[in-house]
């Protein structure tokens, strides 16, 4: 005998969660849209803000620095997230089997993402220091010439990429090691019996089985890569020139240096659109919620 659930019960159960989500997520987004319509300076009362309609969007999108920042951000996200995914998955595959001292390795690998971003930025700033940095000391020990890491546009970009990869590869590693642990051993056993080699087991069996987790991890890393601020703020402050000025740093400078909160909100809307589009793309790759719409 089946009991028919009244139509209002799901609404009752979901209601509080929806309200909390709306307050926590939707309200700031709507506030950003509202702010993007006003000319408001920091340090002044909201009452003094002036309605400018689409003016802030026109100002923001006609500024070539916004588009160069967006390009830098896309490049940064592509290089960092690409490298982190490859390295994180490779590390997880290497350490999924029982190895002596595994717990030590795992703890060591996840340490970087537990460190506060400001400390990460400062640490790498000292490591990349042209005069006293450990990286140049190692290069010179190996007979190579020292580099002015943070003073050269290309090398500064390399520096922020290295810092991000160092900090966030562990996140991919953790996600993947958890996903790989949940793969049904009998399927791998069947593949082995059928004569599948290591690479076939990995690329044709294991990874497709954890593709949902890969997609979610990719999406989370993409979103984070677009929002990263503190490490670059400390490491290069967007320089030399604007070679490492990613969009979130440009928004920060527009808001807190230029004090154009409305223009900063307008650029934030652009960032939101780009991140939403990329997340949609990542979910198209493999949507874990697909087929669960009953």
């Amino acid at each position, binding site marked *: 005998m089946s009991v028919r659930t009244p139509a209002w019960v799901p609404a009752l159960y979901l209601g509080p969660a929806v309200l909390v989500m709306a307050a926590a997520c939707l309200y700031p987004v709507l506030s950003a849209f509202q702010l993007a319509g006003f000319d408001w*300076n*920091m*340090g*002044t*009362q909201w009452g003094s803000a002036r309605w400018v309609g689409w003016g802030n969007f026109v100002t923001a999108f006609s500024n070539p*620095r916004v588009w160069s920042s967006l390009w830098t951000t896309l490049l940064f996200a592509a290089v960092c997230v690409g490298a982190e995914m490859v390295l994180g998955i490779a590390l997880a595959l290497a350490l999924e089997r029982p190895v002596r001292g595994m717990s030590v390795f795992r703890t060591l690998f996840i340490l970087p993402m537990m460190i506060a971003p400001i400390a990460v930025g400062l640490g790498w700033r000292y490591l990349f*220091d*042209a*005069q*006293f940095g450990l990286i140049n000391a190692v290069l010179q020990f190996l007979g190579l010439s*020292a580099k*002015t*890491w*943070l*003073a*050269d*546009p290309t090398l*500064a970009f390399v520096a922020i990429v290295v810092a991000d990869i160092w900090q966030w590869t562990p996140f991919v590693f953790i996600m993947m090691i958890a996903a790989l642990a949940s793969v049904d051993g009998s399927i791998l056993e069947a593949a082995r019996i059928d004569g599948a080699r290591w690479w076939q087991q990995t690329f044709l069996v294991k990874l497709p089985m954890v593709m949902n987790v890969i997609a979610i991890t990719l999406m989370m890393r993409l979103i984070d890569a677009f929002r990263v601020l503190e490490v670059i*703020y400390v490491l*290069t*402050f*967007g*320089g*030399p*020139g*604007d*070679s490492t000025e990613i969009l979130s740093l440009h928004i920060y*400078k*527009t808001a*807190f*240096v*230029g*004090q154009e909160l409305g223009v900063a909100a307008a650029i934030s809307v652009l960032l939101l659109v780009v991140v939403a589009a990329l997340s949609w793309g990542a979910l198209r790759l493999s949507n874990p919620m697909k087929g669960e719409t009953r």
Partner: protein
Amino acid sequence: MNRRDSLKLAAISVFGAGLPYSGVRAQNRYAKYAGQTVVFSIPAHPQYDAMMKILPTFTRETGIKVEVDKLAMGRMKEKQLLEMAKPSGDFDLGCYVVMWKGEYVAKNLIHPLEPFFANPALADPAYDMKDIVPIYLENLGLVGGPKGYLAGPGAKLYGIPYGAETSVLAYRRDIFAKHNLKPPENYEDFGKLLHVIKEKEGIGALASRGQAGHQVVHAWLLHLNPLGGSVFDDKWQPRFNDKIGLAALKFLQDVVATGPAGIPGYGQGESNTAFLQGQAAMYLDSTLIAGLVNDPSKSKIVGNVSWALHPKGVRRASQSGGLGLAIPKNAKHADAGFLLMQWLTSKVQDKAVTMAGGAPMRNSTLRDADAVRKYPEFITFVEALKYSNPDWRPIIPVWDKINVQALGVGLSEALTGKKSAQQALDDMVPQVMAIMREGGYKI
């Protein structure tokens, strides 16, 4: 008791009662506020590190507690703006960078100080405002005068210097003696010396800032002013891309080429470190370095530094800038905040903070025998202050934006070779004009 003894007793009673009068007055000044807590916004900065050593004395003497909110300089302004825009703020006293004074006043965020100093219940009669180095007081304290930030008609006092600085040349006397070199008197000698030191000693010639944003602009202004240039002309038209602006930028490019490696990524800390760790033979920047060069925990060049005036270009000029103290309009304990400001900048405490490694802001300290014995470079500093230019940078409300978002990017591009010096300067003109127009300047 004879008549003479009676007179003595009477005299002692009268004068004995009178002597502690000022002390009693002082005690009364503070008594009303004892138990209050002043929340003080300060930066991570050598001056304020030194101040922390004397701060407990204030609480001991007055009963007023102090809670310090310490932030990195770059993050301090945004927090102050957010706090000061609230109906009732958390800060009772705040440190600000010279560039922010015009903006804070334009937004009506800080108190004018005249009413506090005119209040006999608060003001210390022994304060002696005239003893404060006049250029520091003008540069950091006055707003509303000519150009909006100079002394003259309309100028009002909004802040007191605390961490003020001028520019001097520090040089390694051991290296100069080894190669029989003399400190440069003018920019022509200075330019030649950069190459000579690089070739003969093999280390960087001059430590300099160069990081994109405020740091590179600061470095460029150090050369622009003595060479006779300025950012704007008298009608607020940009003139920084004229031949003097170009000469200053080319000089800075030369500093980068002959200096310690990595200057385009250097903030003030890295520039200081390069000199203090012996990677550069000269340092042309803030007088604040004086508190660090002879500290063995921070410096490898203890006892090897001499001082000279900022080299002369077409004119003798040295920087004016640094930090000051102001009272937010929305302070909960404005009077107690003023008392702390007054105490910190008094003659006695200015000497105390100087002896603890801070920078003096009073002439009496700069000429004090104990202070000069400890810091003989004060003799050079007093001379440099004669040439300190209050119009070193245009401290108008939109300067911070011009500084960081326009000039700070373009100059950095010139240092990294992305653009030629002339192209970088020319490309910044429309950006700067747009910011000026946004700020209400009719240009």
